[in-house]
């Protein structure tokens, strides 16, 4: 397991503040955040590349804070692969073995498995320069896994890949994690990747952790406006709560949350806002009449902006529904959403 306890890092123009992350043995954990949030700084300070101002890094109950990178037992894979360009594929993969000798012998038992599992047999003699992005990332993964690290750190390993390679590598990472049982800490800005690969996640913004929890919990119950927006909740408003209603200006919205006084915002996913031209669903609790202010065609779906009582809602509607409704800007429309889908925080 790996624990980052109260990690603080000060860099010119940026700082990490009180980073607390605890990852169980064999767990796949993602650190989510936008560009510049400090994700990679967390990884590089955990591995000892960036010095920390205070805090502790603990791996398998051993405090490694003061150990150099090479003694921490962590492997790292970068989005730009960071392969050694003067070495062949095989030389890259076996680079670290000489430092992990047991009784004078290099630990090669996993090597064959890793090379086979990552389908690298036919590439071993090749130069790095002639490999595709997907192949390079497979070599980088093999190189990190060959030395059998306690923790594997992945720094946006899919970001630099073409979409077809991205899916392939994502699948490989997931399967390798299942087969090897290795503890993984991956940073990414893509919630879909996190959703596919990890069990638990932390969301970081401006060098601070905003929320930690299971992927499902963070996705469905964000606790800050930033996390809500990051997981795709576009309709985020400050609100005044009264029992199970939330008031935004003159608009009263029914929620199924009984506010205990700590809630200050509501958020609704755009896909949970439905539209209709008829009044047939008049008995719905959150039914409002509004005006379509903008329709943006995105191919299979459209982003529709609806204005009601001075408040702008964003909705995602399938393009065929828009066509059937013959919806155009400035038309009057009914919009509604289920109180269950109104998230209060």
């Amino acid at each position, binding site marked *: 397991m790996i624990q980052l306890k109260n990690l603080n890092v000060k860099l010119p123009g940026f700082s990490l503040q009180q980073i607390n992350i605890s990852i169980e043995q064999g767990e796949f954990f993602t650190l989510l955040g936008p560009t510049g949030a400090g994700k990679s700084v967390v990884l*590089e300070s955990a591995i000892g590349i960036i010095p920390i101002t205070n805090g502790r890094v603990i791996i398998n109950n051993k405090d490694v804070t003061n150990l150099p990178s090479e003694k921490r037992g962590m492997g790292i894979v*970068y989005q730009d692969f960071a392969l050694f360009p003067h070495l062949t594929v095989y030389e890259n993969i076996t680079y*670290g073995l000489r430092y992990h000798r047991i009784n004078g012998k290099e630990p090669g038992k996993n090597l064959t498995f890793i090379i086979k599992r990552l389908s690298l047999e036919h590439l071993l003699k090749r130069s790095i320069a002639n490999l595709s992005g997907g192949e390079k990332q497979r070599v980088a993964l093999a190189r990190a896994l060959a030395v059998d690290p306690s923790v594997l750190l992945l720094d946006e390993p899919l970001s630099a890949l073409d979409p077809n390679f991205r899916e392939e590598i994502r699948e490989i990472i997931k399967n390798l994690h299942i087969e090897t049982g290795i503890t993984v800490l991956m940073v990414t800005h893509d919630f879909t990747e996190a959703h596919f690969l990890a069990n638990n996640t932390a969301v970081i913004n401006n060098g601070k952790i905003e929320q930690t929890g299971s992927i499902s919990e963070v996705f469905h119950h964000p606790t800050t406006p930033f996390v809500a927006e990051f997981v795709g909740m576009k309709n985020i408003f400050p609100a005044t709560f009264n029992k199970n209603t939330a008031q935004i200006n003159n608009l009263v919205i029914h929620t199924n949350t009984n506010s205990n006084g700590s809630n200050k915002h509501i958020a609704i996913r755009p896909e949970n806002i439905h539209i209709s031209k008829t009044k047939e669903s008049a008995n719905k609790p959150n039914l409002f009449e509004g005006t379509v202010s903008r329709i943006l065609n995105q191919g299979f779906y459209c982003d529709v902006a609806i204005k009601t009582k001075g408040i702008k809602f964003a909705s995602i509607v399938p393009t065929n529904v828009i066509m059937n409704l013959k919806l155009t800007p400035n038309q009057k429309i009914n919009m509604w959403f289920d109180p269950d889908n109104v998230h209060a925080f």
Partner: protein
Amino acid sequence: MITKKHTDPFIWLAISCSIIIIAFILFPLLEMVVQPSFADLKEAITDKDVFNAIKLSLYTSLMAALISFIFGTPLAYLLARKDFIGKKLVESIIDLPIMIPHPVVGIAILSIAGKNHWLGQIMSSIGIRLMGSVTGIIVVLTFVGIPFYINSAKAGFEAVPARLEHVSRSLGASVTSSFFRVTFPLAWRSMVVGIIMCTARAVSEFGAVVIVAYHPMIAPVMIYERFTAYGLKYSQPVAVWLIVVCLFLFLLLRVFSIKKKNLI
């Protein structure tokens, strides 16, 4: 219909300036090379004094390059990898020998090597003499040549992503091991270029050497002496041989500076 290709006047201006500059460099050198007869050249190179002067020039210059390599490499690496307070100052200090007039370099070195200076006294007590010695020439040439080595090696280290060293260390390699297995193999070309630049600079040094060690005579000092004592005709053959040596060094420089594509 054939249309006439229009060339921008700026391109013509650039081409004209280029021709003028190349002619400016080549014309006097070519004139000097073609003026001595083959017999003059043969006589010059068979003259033991001339041969020894060129040999000493090469020896002292290569020694200066070797010293620059040994002591300059760690400094170049530090400058390429670390940010610290006063880094700009250190970089400026390294470039100082390029800017200082050469006789001043000679006088500065002599001022610490004399018997009135504590360093001169220490050197004297352990048998090191700079004035009029090969050691003195090597010290002067190292002084003027080392900035060229450090700047070239530094550029080479900077071109190797620090991330490669980080990965190397995560795989178990120490800082030293990472340097020799990753950084050095990727930066050696720039280091070789630096060694050649340093050697070439040292071979051409005259002003500082003539202050510290008129004798034993290196090639530039001999050319100067022959020019002042016997005139142009006697200095030219030695100069031609020195140009041949310099040309060879710069050809080497060009060969080594051709980078392998997609190396990093």
